[in-house]
């Protein structure tokens, strides 16, 4: 690689410095915003799954087996959200004149890589996560929070992205903070197949790590708004037409009829529509932030969803809707501060602050 020629005009140097720092700052803000919107996505999807026909399905007299309640309803909730999200993505791409490029991209090699990554990070990761939760209990929650570390390591090997000891320390701090939040839901129940469950939790982290790293890099080739349209259309179709019918067959229930009810229940669908919009935005900003900052920093900023998730659920479900059991534990606030420190350490060398001060003096 050649060396860049440095302009000697001080005004050009200052403008260039401003452009570069603005790009990095924008990347970090976008990645943080993706974590924040993930909280809304979680809260609205949870709300949708607690309204209308969902109340019957989760009720004691639903006639559904434990398997159907755990897996089929989980997949159906995700399928409804992802399909709404795909409609949002296609509509926004249409409004912005990007629909033709969506058609052109999806047929190409990077488009197919995005489809594969969306399947890995969508239905595969979600199923692994739910199965892990079922087998090993809530210990799987913090294990799945390892995904930024996996993404950063994969980014280093696959795309030669920067990953040094300082960044690893920052990732470890962020993981510790996510673990602190996850630990509040640890019930010690464990489940009958603890080790296998933990394996599935780790598998989910690997799948999300692959998706974040590959699709983040993919946005250097494909416009993020087109990339996310590919992702949501893939996730919607694979959840709705593969996962839901599969779980329906295993559970011996009419999955098609349930899917129709899920989309037509007026009390629930409005929240799924909002969840779909939040999902569109959170994943688009996730890809975009990872593309702008690299997987290590982008995914750690996105990893703040482990704080924003309970926070948004508390605001929307607890404070706004008056539902009980959504209060924020105090440890989550402490963990949020630790996460900020971790992200700061990944983003920059704290010693540079002193250097800049010395230079200014």
């Amino acid at each position, binding site marked *: *690689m*050649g060396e*860049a*020629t*440095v*302009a000697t*005009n001080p*005004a*050009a140097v200052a*403008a*260039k410095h401003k*452009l570069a720092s603005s*790009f990095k700052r924008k*990347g970090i803000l976008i990645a943080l915003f993706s974590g924040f919107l993930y909280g809304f996505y979680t809260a609205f999807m949870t709300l949708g799954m607690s309204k209308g026909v969902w109340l019957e399905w989760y009720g004691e007299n639903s006639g559904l087996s434990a398997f159907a309640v755990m897996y089929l309803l989980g997949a159906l909730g995700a399928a409804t959200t992802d399909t709404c999200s795909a409609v949002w993505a296609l509509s926004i791409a249409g409004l*912005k*004149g*990007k629909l033709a*490029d969506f058609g*052109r*991209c999806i047929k*190409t*090699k*990077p488009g197919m890589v995005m489809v594969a990554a969306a399947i890995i990070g969508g239905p595969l990761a979600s199923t692994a996560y739910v199965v892990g939760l079922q087998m090993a209990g809530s210990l799987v929650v913090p294990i799945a929070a390892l995904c930024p570390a996996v993404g950063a390591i994969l980014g280093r090997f696959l*795309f*030669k*992205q920067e990953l040094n000891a300082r960044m690893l320390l920052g990732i470890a701090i962020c993981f510790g903070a996510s673990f602190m939040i996850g630990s509040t839901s640890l019930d010690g129940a464990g489940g009958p197949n603890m080790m296998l469950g933990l394996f599935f939790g780790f598998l989910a982290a690997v799948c999300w790590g692959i998706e974040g790293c590959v699709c983040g*890099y993919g*946005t*250097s*080739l*494909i*416009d993020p708004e*087109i990339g996310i349209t590919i992702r949501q259309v893939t996730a919607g179709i694979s959840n709705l037409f593969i996962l839901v019918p599969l779980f329906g067959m295993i559970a011996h229930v009419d999955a098609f009829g349930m899917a129709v009810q899920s989309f037509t229940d007026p009390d629930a669908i409005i929240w799924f529509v909002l969840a779909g919009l939040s999902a569109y935005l959170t994943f688009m900003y996730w890809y975009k932030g990872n*593309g*702008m*900052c*690299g997987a290590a920093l982008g995914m750690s900023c996105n990893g703040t969803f482990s704080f924003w998730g309970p926070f948004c659920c508390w605001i929307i479900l607890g404070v706004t809707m008056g539902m009980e059991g959504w209060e924020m534990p105090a440890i989550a606030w402490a963990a949020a501060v630790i996460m900020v420190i971790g992200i700061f350490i990944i983003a920059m060398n704290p010693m540079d602050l002193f250097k800049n001060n010395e230079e200014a003096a």
Partner: protein
Amino acid sequence: MYPLNYAILKHFTKVKEASAESVMEALKGQYGDFKAFKKGEIINALMTAEANGLLEESRFELNSNQELEVFYRAHKEGAATINQYIK
């Protein structure tokens, strides 16, 4: 016809260096009526490609309008990656 982002990247495998302005000049015939054919979006695409090692900065200057113009080039490895993914 390539998607816009592909056309932007592919352009760098054909020229020694280019800025957002010169990319727009080269592609306006085919992509000028695209809603996304805006300088800000193209600068973002170039900087993202640089952040992911597809392009590298070659030089920058203030143009005749006293606006910053950053030039990028596809180094050997970047050009090979672009050509590998975009046929």
